[in-house]
């Protein structure tokens, strides 16, 4: 540019006009983007763990953007929040949590992040089960089936204490019963509707469809388990997370501690599991895949039970596997159990 033009630019008149033009352009840009956000805006929601996260995605559809705090590879019982989680929480307008003391780390995180949005208690209205309930009797008959875990409460205690549960506490794993899952879905829908009334109808419609699918699956599973003789419906798990499942579908879960999350078991732990498996005529053993598979195979061999593999208790499976969604996870768990429990032609 020639020096004359430069001088001209600096003249006050030109400057004033330029500034006005810029301001005007800036304001219209801002307004345009604001209206753009409103038109395709998604509701930012934070779910505490993967199962809730999936449910929120189902109910909220494309109108929500979900962030999950405890991913599939972490343990919600032992989770330690990071600053990134605090930021995610702060940016959200809705927080969906399980409750029932499942997320011990949440109150502090919520306070630290300064979250001011809506909190949705997913388990509101659920009939709560207590840990240590011998609530695994079948509805028909008072048959005593040699509950070894009653006779030796120490074992079950260990399992629960390991997972941060204590005898008499509320059992937080309510989602393991599809009837509760339906309650969860409705609560989530109601919460989303409250936070985003414009899309309330959308959310309720989606929830209804979701609940219908749950109902269908629930009936299917109930029928499948009912078809199996009762004395075969007994398994060992290493994690006391399936109480609701057991009550709902008539399966007896005997939690035994000492194998998962441990560097090396003692001979007594292994012997105890085998003994329980033998004496209670356990059909299957489900031990988290943390344990050495060699050990798991040995237990199966000696107790006559089948190694069931993995059951998803507190989290979904990895992204491209069937158990990556709540319904998928349920089908998977039920499928594994059915496979293990079905009568063997020996």
């Amino acid at each position, binding site marked *: 540019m020639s020096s004359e033009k430069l001088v001209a630019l600096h003249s006050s008149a030109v400057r004033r006009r330029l500034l006005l033009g810029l301001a005007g352009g800036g304001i219209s840009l801002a307004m345009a983007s604001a209206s753009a956000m409103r038109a395709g805006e998604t509701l930012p929601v934070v779910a505490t763990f993967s199962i809730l996260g999936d449910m929120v995605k189902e109910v909220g559809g494309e109108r929500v953007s979900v962030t999950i705090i405890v991913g599939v590879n972490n343990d919600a019982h032992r989770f330690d929040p990071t600053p990134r989680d605090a930021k995610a929480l702060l940016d959200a307008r809705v927080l969906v949590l399980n409750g029932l003391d499942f997320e011990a780390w949440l109150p502090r995180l919520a306070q630290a992040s300064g979250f001011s949005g809506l909190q949705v208690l997913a388990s509101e209205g659920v009939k709560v089960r207590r840990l240590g309930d011998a609530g695994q009797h079948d509805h028909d008959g008072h048959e005593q089936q040699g509950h070894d875990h009653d006779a030796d409460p120490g074992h079950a205690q260990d399992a629960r204490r390991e997972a941060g549960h204590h005898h008499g506490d509320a059992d937080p794993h309510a989602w393991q019963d599809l009837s509760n899952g339906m309650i969860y879905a409705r609560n989530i829908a109601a919460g989303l509707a409250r936070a985003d009334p414009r899309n309330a109808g959308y959310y309720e419609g989606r929830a209804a469809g979701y609940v219908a699918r749950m109902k269908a699956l629930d009936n299917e599973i109930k029928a499948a388990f009912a078809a199996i003789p009762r004395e075969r419906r007994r398994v060992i798990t290493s994690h006391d997370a399936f109480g609701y499942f057991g009550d709902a579908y008539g399966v007896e879960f005997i939690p035994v501690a000492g194998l998962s999350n441990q*560097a*090396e*078991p*003692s*001979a*007594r*732990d*292994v*012997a105890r599991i*085998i003994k329980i498996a033998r004496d209670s005529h356990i059909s299957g053993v489900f031990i988290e895949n*943390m*344990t*050495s*598979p*060699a*050990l*798991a*195979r*040995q*237990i199966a*061999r*000696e107790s006559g039970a089948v190694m069931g593999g993995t059951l998803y208790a507190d989290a979904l499976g990895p992204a491209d596997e069937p158990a990556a969604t709540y319904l998928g996870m349920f089908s998977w768990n039920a499928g594994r159990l059915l496979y293990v429990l079905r009568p063997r032609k020996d």
Partner: protein
Amino acid sequence: MSGIELLYMPFAEFGFMRRALAGSAALALAAGPLGVFLILRRMSLMGDAMAHAILPGVAVGFLTAGLSLTAMTVGGMLTGLLVATLAAGVARLTPQREDASFAAFYLVSLGVGVLLISLRGSNMELIHVLFGTVLGLDDGALLLVSATSSVSLVVLALVFRPLVMECLDPLFLRSESRMGPVVHVVFLLLLVMTLVAGFQVLGTLMVVGIMMLPAAAARFWAVSVAGQMALAAGAGVFASYAGLLFSYYANVPASPAIILCAGIVYFISVSLGPQGGLWQVVRQARARRLRFSRIPERD
């Protein structure tokens, strides 16, 4: 339950206890004699270093084929030999001494191994490699341990004379025959083979324990090499038995329990062993003092 029954009941009742005993006893039978030679050749720490050196081979086997016995064994053997060869090469061609070069190589090897395992597996799987699964020995593992031990014992018997000579007077052996280096290599092979088979039973951390502790203890009881070998094997088997019982009754992890029992055997040997044990030393010192006190004083 009577006291005697306590001693065998867990093994009678549970298959996994019998297998654990079979596996660790088989391992101890070969590891003990090998340990005796390690000590005689002043390679005691080398055994431990070798156990760490084979880790990346095991890790690579694990990464490529999961928890496959063959893959991990082959991997372990290759790495162990590679580390030994490289260390020996550096020691021969540069001013660095053999123990330093070996230390350098095995540490690098260990780091690589831990890295590789953490890449794919979770920490749990690393821990299983480190601690073994003596309580979960399946047929494949049992077979491997038994076969390895048998081969080791047979080979040891074959090369016994030159091996002893090579430990006792390598220069003499060199003047008589060329078997020296061959025997050295064979011994290293046996060592690596036993370590690799043993890590399934006791894990890489503890397998050296069952090799060195009974051997170190045997020295306090036996005067000949063969005697020490036999005692080391026996002590190892006993430690396995006692350790498993201890794990059962005291509810503690199995492989450390076995090693602790071996350690107790060692301490008893150090204290009470007739060949230079502490009690002997004290007794002899006292006897000597007594003798001197009896010498009449000159007036």
